[in-house]
């Protein structure tokens, strides 16, 4: 695993990863988040540990070995794309705001339904006024 990226580099790479997957309409992008063990975090006094974010294509951008078996051996060596970054607790909100934006923009292969969106939004807004303010920020 290469060293963790900074947030800016991470988002840049993630954008390209999502965009290429969406344009190819093939393959997958895996995003994981999990708390780092307290021992490795720099500041152990914080209540919430740092969050490790990983993004990978699961090597799905590589050609299908079944169909490309005898064609080109060089293509088999396409490396798996792996990105990772660490988010400190105090950066979480800002990070996820950008993260959501990047994902929204990058995941263009999903269905787009403006009517449904408005409906869902209204429901969510009516349910929690507090949430509404947070959502608009993001």
């Amino acid at each position, binding site marked *: 695993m290469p060293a963790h990226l900074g947030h800016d580099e991470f988002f840049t790479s993630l954008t390209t990863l999502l965009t290429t997957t969406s344009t190819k309409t093939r393959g997958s992008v895996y*995003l994981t988040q999990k708390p780092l063990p307290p021992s490795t975090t720099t500041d152990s006094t914080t209540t919430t540990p740092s969050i490790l974010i990983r993004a990978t294509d699961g090597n799905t951008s590589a050609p299908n070995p079944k169909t490309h078996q005898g064609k080109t051996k060089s293509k088999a060596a396409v490396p798996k794309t792996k990105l990772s970054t660490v988010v400190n607790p105090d950066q979480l909100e800002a990070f996820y705001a950008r993260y959501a934006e990047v994902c929204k923009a990058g995941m263009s292969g999903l269905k787009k339904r403006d009517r449904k969106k408005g409906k869902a939004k209204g429901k969510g807004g009516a349910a929690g006024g507090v949430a509404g303010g947070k959502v608009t920020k993001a």
Partner: protein
Amino acid sequence: MPYLPTAQSYLEQSSLLLQAYPDARITTKYTFPPRPSPSTSTSTPTPTSTSKPQDATTTTTTTTTTTTSTADPTPSKPAVATLVLKTFDPRSGICLKYKTNKGAEVGRLITSLGKLAAGADVEGLGLGSSAVPTSGTADVEMGDAPALGAAGPAEGGDGAGSAGKGAGGKGKKKGGKGKR
């Protein structure tokens, strides 16, 4: 583990799981379905959504099928990606999943994942009142039933009003009065 029916229930259950097992990890998978015939995929990867004009040109140039040409807009395109959210705790083996293909949900989901990462509880997610369980809905139903009767006795109305107060459903109560 089965998929949870709604994003809200997924997020609520995930927050409970994370509270019980903070080590649980959340995986978001954005994936396209595998193509049945590899011959088409290798030759011309068709861009789905990024550009409508390109789609139009490809449909006109290629002589594949009539169905695609008639239904030009993007939603009818075959390759619709899916987004699968999975919360998994390796220690307990508990796994929660939610699957969607609606782009409108992405922003909300990711923002909620951020709140989960920050250790938010069910209320902290700000998902709203459905966390208030069955009692609230039962009260609402009771209030609605006499309203449907329209010419219901005053007694029923009072009962509904008090129930609405108990549940904190001000909107429902007002609506009932307005109808009368």
